[in-house]
């Protein structure tokens, strides 16, 4: 991977890729079961999936398909019932809460659907928050680059309440990028935005994959959002049912319609 070398990993991160293709995160036979007996619900059923470096993956599926659960389990926000998950070379199952917290801090970036920012901190302080938590100083050149990439240069001293919804989500993206994580998980990042701001934000995500060599996994139910990704993974009933490379909105929509039809007939 030629571009992997140009993308410096964070200190203490596992040494580069093994084998031919660098994998940022991997799930093997991942199952997640809620409840017991009659109330037992299988949210994820032996899912195996890989997310490659510097690739933008969208996870799609109808409501209740397990797409958010998959993201939460892979990001160390939720525990798993069986199987294994890895971020880089680190096996999450073996980590306690403290190490998981540190892993999230150092190797994972998050963008949530809403309420990403602390209202008391300025945009800049929000962006550098993970570094502050870790007690590290951000690299000023990298910070500048990230900030200008997401187009926030003039707004750094603003508080979240002085920013629009789109700007707030861009601050969240900048925060995720600044710490140079192994992988960024985005959970419906455009869910609360109007279509123009949403398109803008997706553009920035796309840009950060291409220009900054970032790995991004995005959960969405919007075919247009999914079309920005390099690859779309389709989930239904806790299983991966399909995969699409170089998706277009129409192709994704057609695929989704097929799910719906199947869901209605079955």
């Amino acid at each position, binding site marked *: 991977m030629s571009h992997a070398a140009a993308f410096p990993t964070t200190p203490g991160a596992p040494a580069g890729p093994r084998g031919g293709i660098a994998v940022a995160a991997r799930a093997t036979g991942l199952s997640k079961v809620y409840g017991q007996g009659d109330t037992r619900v299988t949210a994820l059923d032996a899912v195996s999936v890989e997310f490659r470096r510097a690739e933008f993956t969208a996870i799609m599926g109808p409501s209740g398909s397990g797409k958010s659960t998959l993201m*939460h389990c892979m*990001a160390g*926000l*939720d525990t798993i019932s069986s199987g294994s998950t890895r971020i880089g070379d680190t096996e999450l199952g073996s980590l306690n*809460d*403290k190490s998981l*917290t*540190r892993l*999230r*801090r*150092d190797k994972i*970036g*998050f963008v*949530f659907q*809403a*309420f*990403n920012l*602390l*209202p*008391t*901190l300025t945009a800049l302080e929000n962006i550098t*928050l*993970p570094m*502050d*938590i*870790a*007690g590290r100083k951000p690299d000023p050149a990298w910070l500048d680059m990230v900030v200008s990439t997401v187009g926030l240069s003039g707004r750094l001293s603003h508080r*979240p*309440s002085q920013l629009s919804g789109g700007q707030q989500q861009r601050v969240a993206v900048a*925060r995720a990028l600044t710490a140079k994580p192994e992988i960024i998980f985005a959970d419906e990042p455009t869910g*609360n935005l109007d279509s123009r701001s949403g398109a803008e934000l997706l553009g920035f995500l796309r840009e950060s994959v291409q220009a900054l060599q970032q790995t991004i996994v995005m959960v969405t139910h919007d075919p247009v959002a999914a079309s920005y990704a390099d690859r779309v993974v389709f989930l239904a009933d806790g299983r991966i049912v399909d995969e699409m490379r170089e998706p277009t909105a129409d192709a994704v929509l057609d695929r989704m319609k097929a799910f719906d039809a199947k869901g209605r007939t079955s």
Partner: protein
Amino acid sequence: MFRTALRNLLAHKTRLMMTALAVLLGTAFVSGTLIFSDSVGSAFRNKMSRSLDDVAVSVTEGGGRPGTGKDKPEKLGDRAVETVRALPGVASVRPSVEGVAMIADKHNNPTGGEWGSAGVNYAPGKDGKDSRYPLVKGRAPAAEGEIALDERTAGKTGAKIGGTVRMAVDGPVLEKKLVGIVRTDNPRVSAGGSLAVFDTATAQKLFGKPGEFSELVVSATPGTDKDKLTAEVRKALPATFEAQSGAKLAAEQSKMIDEQTRSIRTTFLVFAGISLFVGVFIIANTFTMLIAQRTREIALLRAVGASRRQVVRSVLAEAGLLGLIASALGLGLGLGVAVLLPELLNANGAHLPDGPLVIKAPAVLSALAVGVVVTVLAAWLPSRKAARIAPVEALSSGDQPPAPRSLVVRNCIGAVLTALGVASLLYTTTFRDRSGLTYAMAGSALTLTGVIVLAPLLSRPFVRLFGKLTARFSGVSGKLAKENALRNPRRTAATASALMIGLTLITGLTVSAVSANEGVGRMGKQDLTADYQVKSSSYLGLAPEVGKKLAAQPGIAAAVPLRMSGFQSDGQPSLAVATDPSSIAKVTYLRVTSGSLADVRGTGAVAVSESYAKKHGLKTGSTLPMEFYDGKRAAPKVVAVHADNDVLGDVLTAPALVDPHQEKVRDDSVLVKAEPGEAAGLREKIKDAFGGNPIIKVESPEDLRRAESGNIDPILNLAYGLLGMAVVIAVLGVVNTLAMSVFERTREIGMLRAIGLARREVKRMVRLESVMIAMFGAVLGVGTGIFVAWAGGHLLRSSFPQYEMVVPWARIAVFLLLALAVGVLAAVWPARRAAKLNMLESIGAQ
């Protein structure tokens, strides 16, 4: 709308818990106090009425009434007894003699203390028994050498029936044979005193009134009109005697008890009021937060047609319900307080009579009313805020908190109030007497209120400064804590204010008390150069023989008796000290500014202090008009003026001038100077010389200073205890604010955890915010308290020139450390809750 209120109350049970607890504690304090004082009052009354049961009429000499003619008034003696006994309707007359009899315990100290050592006569009725002092063991005293004691006193002396009891009245130690143990309802004894019973003749002799009684207790035959009998007794006896009906005595005593219990009750209620006032802040804070959290709900209610008034009413109904439930529970706790309080007080030396718990309707109703009214009043401002919520807010995303309202108006009001208060207090400092008290009170209240109103403004620089410190040492959690404390200055300020009120009062009291204490210490016999002061443990003083005996002891260079006698000069009461002017210089440092002390001799000469001379316009050579309390006058010459001296006071005379005007010549104290090298061990030698007499008290100057300055600590400790309740409620307020803040910030905390803030750091963030709030309250309180104490101290200067403000920094440091501990403690539960939050649920929470 009432149903909405009830639903809301039930839905927010845990969030209202702290508020309910604050109201509960306040009402428990109120109801506990009221029930306690009702119970104690009725127990006292029962006891009194039992001891007055058989009293129809009481006859006394009529204290202090000057003789009408030239003849001395008749003594209350056997003749009066016979006269009364002969009246129709009189069943019996009990002639009683009362005085002071100090009984020595095993260490030769008085068992009953200075005021409680009662000595009485055994006055047997027709059956040969004295119904007032029923014998428990042994027999009644019948001869001069015999004594009976109450059970507790006998236990303290260690004597058994047939053994020897050592006692004294105001003279030498006497040994009596213990012949009996009696039971008594005597209130002095049940209040911790001792009771000694003698036969009538011995009692009269001991108390210096041979053939004379202190009181005739007349009981009536059944069916006699007691008021009529009283009138007849009055008619039959000389006019100098005083005859009162038993009913009137009972009424007077009952009034006295009421006054006493009322003063305890008022004190406790003042502190209960402070606690409730502190509670107001917590209640107001809680409702403000609940309404902020419920903005969309309320907007929805408004959108579907609820009027503003209905919204206000719904909030107030919720507050009223909360207040009612909390005060009902508080009433239960108050009952417990009323049960435990007498035991607690008794364990600390109070001797409250036993009695059933008396629960009167006013106590119950007022406790409930206070709880409900305070809660509703505190929720009133927040309810207005709720009414201002526009229906359209139901539709807003609600993601962003509303922009904080401007503090400009509040700051202006606060600045004006504080300025008025400070100005008033500064004006107070120009007074040199108590006439400035009104300004001091008003100034303190205004300053306190002003600072509370200004607290949001003041919180910003404080939190910023403190935040710099925490950010430096605790990194990002310190920084986040600072931002959280700054986020809502009103909330931070209201929480801190609750703590501030308690600390202002505690600091103010401490500074004043410690300063006064030091002043008293300075005042306490500064000029004393004697090695010991010998005094009586009773208020009767010492017989002149004590001084003579001391002077004759080996190892004693000088024994100077001081004899106090009151007189009036130009209508103003003064105190003269009669002593031996020639040896006075050996026991006190006395600087004579004019004349010579040697001339203070006989009946025609006095020496006065400089300040007395100035006040009365005297100088050497002028005449001091004196009017003694026996009605006689004298006009001695001022032969010397000396510098003010706190041992001798204002007017120094020779005994010859004052002795003829005393009923009984007694020395107040004898100052003893030891021969060089003999001071050590002299105390024991003096005690031994008087045969371990319980009335002889030997104290060194250090003892005196310690005793005088020790007076303030118990009062201060009581005040700490009572103000502690206000502080506890304030701590509940901090817990409350933090818990509700954690609830409000659920999503933030979830997000912080997701991006890598460890549980430990979440906890630290909450804890630091708590510490900031607590420290802010403490610093404000300590500052205000010191300022108020400084200004108020000026009022004491006139009557207490030694007063100088002393700031007990060590204690203040302890207060601040306690506030720190309070901050850490208050955060324990909210911090744990914050750290335990489930990340995924938190992020998704609305």
